[in-house]
């Protein structure tokens, strides 16, 4: 995985006031400043999370995922029906700028790799990558070769396992096995601790639960615990308690149609069931 920090981009501002960009001077697939990323489209396509485009030059079309036009594209590089309504496909010629809540924006190159990232932090990716839902709720996995853009509150910090991370500070991880939960209630044991857990006096430290990473790889951290509101995807839904879908994340939560096949927005889907056939 190669990482491009926003600070490597061309410096904006300076003694002469802010740098003025035009379609030619805007960088191609690089950071404009720490908070903005510029994607150049030359007839190709990019997947883009809704609402992250702030401006563009040229003729770019934004189409919702699931309109039938992108069937082939979706088959190869989009495998997250639960997030389908959050994504659009940008297509055409020109340069578009991406940003998100004044968060730091960085781009990453994957080379035959895999990286799992918090769903709210991923802004855009090249269709040469395949997007899949991670089995950890709220995370998405990118597999393949290509570039993607992600946001983080403050610069991303890279750490090596073994490491335990506050769930909210975790941006993602690359090339390492999925994390497991680590619970630490040490202070709840003993006489005083028992009294504490019995009465609730003294409160909790807020650090009883972490994600634990072991093995080889890289863990990505952000320096803040404020997050974007996100959907708890991948949780075992109520419909999955019994029957065939037992234990399948997301089962029984809607977007999976009656045949157990993911359904994209805009599709008719359960017509057969609705007609009572």
């Amino acid at each position: 995985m190669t990482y491009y920090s926003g600070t490597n981009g061309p410096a904006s501002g300076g003694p002469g006031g802010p740098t003025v960009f035009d379609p030619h001077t805007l960088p191609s697939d690089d950071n404009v400043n720490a908070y903005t990323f510029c994607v150049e489209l030359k007839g190709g396509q990019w997947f883009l999370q809704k609402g992250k485009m702030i401006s563009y030059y040229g003729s770019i079309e934004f189409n919702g995922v699931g309109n039938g036009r992108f069937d082939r594209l979706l088959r190869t590089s989009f495998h997250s029906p639960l997030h389908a309504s959050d994504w659009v496909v940008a297509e055409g010629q020109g340069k578009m700028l991406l940003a998100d809540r004044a968060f730091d924006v960085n781009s990453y190159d994957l080379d035959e790799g895999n990286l799992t990232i918090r769903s709210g932090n991923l802004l855009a990716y090249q269709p040469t990558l395949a997007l899949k839902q991670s089995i950890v709720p709220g995370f998405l996995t990118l597999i393949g070769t290509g570039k993607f853009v992600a946001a983080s509150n403050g610069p991303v910090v890279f750490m090596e396992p073994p490491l335990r991370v506050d769930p909210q500070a975790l941006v993602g991880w690359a090339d390492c096995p999925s994390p497991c939960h680590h619970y630490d209630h040490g202070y709840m044991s003993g006489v005083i601790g028992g009294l504490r857990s019995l009465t609730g006096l003294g409160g909790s430290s807020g650090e009883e639960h972490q994600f634990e990473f072991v093995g080889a790889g890289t863990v990505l951290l952000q320096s803040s615990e404020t997050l974007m509101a996100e959907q708890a995807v991948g949780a075992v839904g109520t419909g999955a308690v019994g029957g065939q879908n037992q234990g399948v994340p997301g089962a029984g939560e809607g977007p999976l149609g009656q045949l157990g096949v993911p359904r994209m927005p805009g599709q008719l889907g359960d017509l057969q069931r609705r007609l009572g056939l």
Partner: protein
Amino acid sequence: MPFREINSKMVEAQVVPGQRMYSQRGAMLAYRGEVSFTPSLTGGQGGVMGMIGRRVANEQTPLMTVEGSGTVMFGHGGHHIQVINLSGETLYVEADRLLAFDGTLQQGTMFMGSQGGVMGMVRGQVTGQGLFTTTLKGHGSVAVMAHGGVIELPITPQRPVHVDPQAYVAHHGDVRNKLSTALGWRDMVGRGSGEAFQLELSGQGAVYVQASEEKL
């Protein structure tokens, strides 16, 4: 043990056995090694009397003790972090701005009135800081949170520093502070400059100012 700044919003601290550290609850981002986080019932040092003192002064803040051996990363809410190393002097800071500090530092509360008299109390009310503030004294490091970046302004006897009360973060050293008002008839008729109250710090030391007028 000093904090190491990883970036402007994250600090790293070494925890060694036998040395205790205090941090705001929920401010741990990640850690290596065997470290335990215990909510501090009394909210810091000084035992039950210290707790009562802080409750009365409305300077209590949810703290936890960090013990064990390893490395801990701290950060909170995307706020900028300023590390202040103390060598014997006293740091005056609002309790909710404390991210983490060495257990070797002596924690206390101070009455605003004792530093600037009646105007000190007025100042506490005007700035929304209340009548009390937290003090940390001794040798060690403190990580303080601020909204936006922090700059350190030195205070020398010849050069007092004027600070917007909302942008004030903390100060240390032998410093007297007083609230200076520039209230005029313009303020009375609602045409003020918005800078009617200023904090004047004079003496020997330093004041930390944040690049924002937003409170934490």
